[in-house]
C-alpha cells in the first residue's frame, strides 16, 4: 500500500483491502528473502546479513522482495535467512554469515536446498483454522532436508500466541490483517456483546500467562463488575525473569496481536485506555510496539469510534526503569504513577483499586495475544487444548545447557522430558541433564529423575516449582545446585524493593548462609537454619516476590540435599563449580607445552616454558577456567 494513502478502516471491506495488500506482500508473485531481525537475531549478526542480502539483490538486480521478520524461535540457529519462491516450500538457512549470502542466493530464482536447514511447506493460521500450503498442494519434499513438520523442535509445537512470529513482517499492519488480524475485533464489536466476549474467555479456561495463573475470565469479570471508573487495562511486558524472553518474542514479532487483544478486552470490561509497560532493556520491543500503535491509530483501529462501532480505546507505552519487582502488578502500577516500585498489600486487588485507584486489569503479553484467537475460534475450542485445569498452550524459552535453545509453544501437559530431549534435542557435549529450572527466581529446580512431569500449573507446584512466565533453564551435570541457590538469592536481595523486613533481611541472610555453604564454611545446623529462614520469608513477606523468594533454596534442598551436605561435611563441590572448593592443575603427563593457555590466564598464574610442562601457581589462580576452555589436549584438571 503506498505510504501516502492510509485508508481508514471503517468497515469490513476496508479491512479486507488491507488484507489483500498484506497477502500480496506475504506471498508475493516473486521471490522473497526474509531475515530474522528480532533482538537475538541481531545479537548473532543478522543486521550484517540483511545488509549483505540487500547488496546482493542490488548488485545482481534480482527481482525479489527483501523483508524482515520476527523470531521464529530457533534461537540457536540465528542468524536465520529464509528464501520463499512462489509454488515452492520456504527454505531456511541457519547460522548464516554475511559472506555466505552470495552462495545461498546463487541459484535464485531457484532456492538452493543443499545448504538448507529446513523446509516450511506451509503455514498454519489458528485464527482462521486454515493451513496455507506453499506448494499448491504438492508435497514439497526435498531429499535430505527435513520439513518443519518433521523436525523434533517444531513438530510438537502448537503456535497460537506465536502464530505470526517469523511469518509476518512485524512492521506491517497489512500482513497482520492478511493473517486474520483484527477480524476478531470486528466480530467482537459487531456480533458479540461485551458479556458474550467475556463468556468466551471464561469458557476458554485461559489463565494468566505471567506466572500466577489466575483465571483470566474471572479477572475480567471482576474488573467489569467493579464500581467506579475510568477503568484501565495494562499489558505487563516487564518480563523480569532472567532467562525468559517470550514476551520479547511476541512484541518484536507480532505487536498487533497484543493491541487487538487489549481492544477486545477493553470492550468486554468497559475500559477505554490501555498501557503497555515494557521493560527498558527491550528497546526493539518498545520500537515495534510504538510503530504498531501508530499504524493502528492511523487506520482507526485505535482511537475514537473504532471501526465505526462507537467504542473508543487508546493505548500508550510506558517504559520500565530497571526493577524486577515492577513485574508485580501493584509495583508496576506504582511505577506508572511515577513512584518507586513498592508493592501494595492486596486486598484491595487492582481489579478493584488499581491504576490511579481505579479498576484495572493487568494481564501478561501472552494472555492478551491469545484473546483474538479465542474470540475467533471460541472458548470451547481453546478449552479442548491442554490438560486438567491448564488449558491452551504456553510459550517457553528453552535455554541453558540444551542443544536447541529456542522459543517454543506447546500444549499444556507436554512433559518436561519431551521438551528437553525431543524438542530441545537433549544435552550437548556428552553431558547429562541434572535439573530443569522453571518459574524464574520464584520457581524451583526439577531434577532429571522427574522429567516425566507434565508441564501444567498444578503439577509444577506439587513438584516444588511454579510455571512462572515460561523461562525454562536446562542445567547439566556441571551445574552446582548450591551455586544456583546462591545465584537466585543474590538476584533477589538486589531486586527486593526492601520495604518489608522479612524479604529484605530474610533474602540477605539466606544468601549469607548459602554462600557460607558454597565456600566450604557451612555448619551442620545451617540447613535447619535455612529451612527456618525459608519458612519465615515465605509466610511473612508482603508480596509474591518475597513469598516465593525461598523457592530456589527449598527446591534445591528438597532434591539435592546431598550436594549441600557434601559442601558442608566434605568441603567438596561435586559439580566442581564453587571456587573455594576446587583447584585447577595441569596434568604433567598430558601437557605438551603448547602454551596456548598462558596468555589467556586472567591471573597470569600459568608458569613454565614452551615445549615444557606448564604448571599453575595456586596463589595466583583466579579459577576463571579459561585454561580448561582452551586446552585442546585435556591437560587441565579440576579437583
Amino acid at each position, binding site marked *: 500500500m503506498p505510504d501516502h494513502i492510509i485508508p481508514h478502516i471503517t468497515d469490513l471491506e476496508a479491512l479486507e483491502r488491507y488484507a489483500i495488500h498484506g497477502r500480496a506482500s506475504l506471498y508475493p508473485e516473486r521471490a522473497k528473502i526474509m531475515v530474522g531481525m528480532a*533482538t537475538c537475531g541481531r545479537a548473532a549478526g543478522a543486521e550484517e546479513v540483511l545488509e549483505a542480502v540487500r547488496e546482493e539483490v542490488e548488485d545482481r538486480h534480482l527481482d525479489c522482495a527483501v523483508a524482515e521478520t520476527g523470531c521464529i524461535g530457533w534461537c540457536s540457529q540465528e542468524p536465520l535467512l529464509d528464501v520463499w519462491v512462489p509454488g515452492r516450500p520456504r527454505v531456511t538457512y541457519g547460522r548464516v554469515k554475511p559472506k555466505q549470502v552470495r552462495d545461498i542466493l546463487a541459484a535464485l530464482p531457484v532456492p538452493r536446498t543443499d545448504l538448507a536447514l529446513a523446509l516450511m511447506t506451509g503455514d498454519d493460521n489458528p485464527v482462521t483454522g486454515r493451513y496455507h500450503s506453499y506448494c499448491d498442494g504438492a508435497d514439497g519434499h526435498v531429499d535430505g532436508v527435513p520439513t518443519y513438520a518433521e523436525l523434533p523442535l517444531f513438530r510438537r509445537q502448537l503456535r497460537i500466541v506465536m502464530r505470526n512470529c517469523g511469518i509476518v513482517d512485524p512492521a506491517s499492519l497489512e500482513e497482520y490483517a492478511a493473517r486474520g488480524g483484527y477480524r476478531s475485533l470486528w466480530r467482537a464489536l459487531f456480533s458479540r456483546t461485551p458479556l458474550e466476549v467475556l463468556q468466551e474467555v471464561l469458557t476458554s479456561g485461559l489463565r494468566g500467562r505471567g506466572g500466577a495463573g489466575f483465571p483470566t475470565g474471572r479477572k475480567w469479570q471482576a474488573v467489569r463488575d467493579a464500581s467506579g471508573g475510568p477503568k484501565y487495562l495494562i499489558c505487563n511486558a516487564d518480563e523480569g525473569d532472567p532467562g525468559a*524472553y517470550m514476551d520479547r518474542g511476541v512484541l518484536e514479532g507480532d505487536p498487533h496481536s497484543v493491541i487487538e487483544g487489549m481492544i477486545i478486552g477493553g470492550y468486554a470490561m468497559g475500559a477505554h485506555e490501555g498501557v503497555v509497560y515494557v521493560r527498558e532493556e527491550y528497546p526493539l520491543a518498545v520500537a515495534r510496539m510504538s510503530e504498531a500503535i501508530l499504524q493502528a491509530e492511523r487506520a482507526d483501529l485505535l482511537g475514537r469510534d473504532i471501526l465505526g462501532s462507537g467504542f473508543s480505546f487508546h493505548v500508550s507505552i510506558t517504559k520500565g*526503569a*530497571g526493577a524486577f519487582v515492577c513485574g508485580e502488578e501493584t509495583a508496576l502500577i506504582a511505577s506508572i504513577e511515577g513512584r518507586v516500585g513498592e508493592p501494595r498489600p492486596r486486598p484491595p486487588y487492582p481489579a478493584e483499586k488499581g491504576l490511579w485507584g481505579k479498576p484495572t486489569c493487568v494481564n501478561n503479553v501472552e494472555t492478551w495475544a491469545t484473546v483474538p484467537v479465542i474470540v475467533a475460534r471460541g472458548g470451547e475450542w481453546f478449552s479442548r487444548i491442554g490438560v486438567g485445569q491448564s488449558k491452551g498452550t504456553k510459550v517457553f524459552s528453552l535455554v541453558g545447557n540444551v542443544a536447541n*535453545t529456542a522459543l517454543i509453544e506447546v500444549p499444556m501437559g507436554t512433559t518436561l522430558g519431551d521438551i528437553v530431549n525431543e524438542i530441545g534435542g537433549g544435552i550437548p557435549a556428552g553431558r547429562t541433564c541434572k535439573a530443569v529450572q522453571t518459574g524464574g527466581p520464584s520457581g524451583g529446580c526439577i531434577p532429571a529423575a522427574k522429567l516425566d512431569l507434565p508441564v501444567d500449573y498444578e503439577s509444577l507446584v506439587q513438584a516444588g516449582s511454579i510455571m512462572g512466565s515460561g523461562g525454562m533453564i536446562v542445567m547439566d551435570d556441571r551445574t552446582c545446585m548450591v551455586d544456583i541457590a546462591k545465584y537466585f538469592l543474590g538476584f533477589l536481595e538486589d531486586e527486593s524493593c526492601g520495604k518489608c523486613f522479612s524479604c529484605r533481611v530474610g533474602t540477605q541472610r539466606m544468601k549469607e548462609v548459602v554462600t557460607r555453604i558454597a565456600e566450604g564454611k557451612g555448619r551442620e545446623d545451617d540447613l535447619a537454619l535455612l529451612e527456618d529462614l525459608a519458612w519465615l520469608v515465605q509466610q511473612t513477606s508482603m508480596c509474591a516476590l518475597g513469598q516465593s523468594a525461598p523457592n530456589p533454596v527449598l527446591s534445591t534442598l528438597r532434591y539435592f540435599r546431598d550436594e549441600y551436605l557434601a559442601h558442608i561435611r566434605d568441603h567438596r563441590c561435586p559439580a566442581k563449580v564453587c571456587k573455594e572448593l576446587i583447584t585447577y592443575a595441569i596434568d604433567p603427563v598430558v601437557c605438551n607445552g603448547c602454551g596456548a593457555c598462558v596468555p589467556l590466564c*586472567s591471573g597470569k598464574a600459568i608458569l613454565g616454558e614452551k615445549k615444557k610442562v606448564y604448571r599453575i601457581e595456586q596463589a595466583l589462580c583466579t579459577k576463571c577456567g579459561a585454561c580448561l576452555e582452551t586446552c585442546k589436549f585435556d591437560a587441565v584438571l579440576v579437583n
Partner: protein
Amino acid sequence: MLHVESATADETLAQFDDRRANLIPILQEVQATYSYLPEDVLRKVARKLKVPLPQVFQVATFYRCFSLKPRGKHVVQVCLGTACHVRGGTRILERVETETGLTDVGTTPDLQFVVETVRCLGCCGLAPVMKVDRDVFASLEQTKVKGVLNRYRAGGLKRPARKGGSRA
C-alpha cells in the same frame, strides 16, 4: 560537581508537562541526555513537578537504569541472567573486570568504560551475552572479551553504511 548547561536541561524538561506520572520518563530523558542524573537537574525536576526533592531522590535511586554519577563513555553490560549464568556469565564478568582493571562494577578511572550487570537482555538462546553501547555480543567466550573491549578503546566498531532503510 559538574554544572550542567542550564539551557539544555530546561529544553529537556520543557518537553514534558508537570504531572507526577511523568517523573520516570523525565528522568529517563535526562539520563539519556547526560548519561547520568546531575544533581542540579534533579533539583529542577523536583521544582517543576512540585514533588519534594527527597521523593525525587528516592525514585532516582530505586531504579537501576539511573545513575547519580557520570558514567564511562562506553557502557558495558554483562548479562547475568540465569541462562547466561549457567553458560558462564560470571566468568565473562570477571574477565571484563580484569581487562578494565576494576574490582567491581562501576566506571573506570579514565572514564572510558562503565561496567554494569544486567539481569536479562532477552538473548538467552545465545548465552552468554554482553552488550557494549548498542552492540550485543552473543555466544561469547571469556577469551574473546579482551578483543571486544579493544575495539572500543580504538574508537568503536566499524559498521557497514546503510543503503536505504527497512520497509516502513
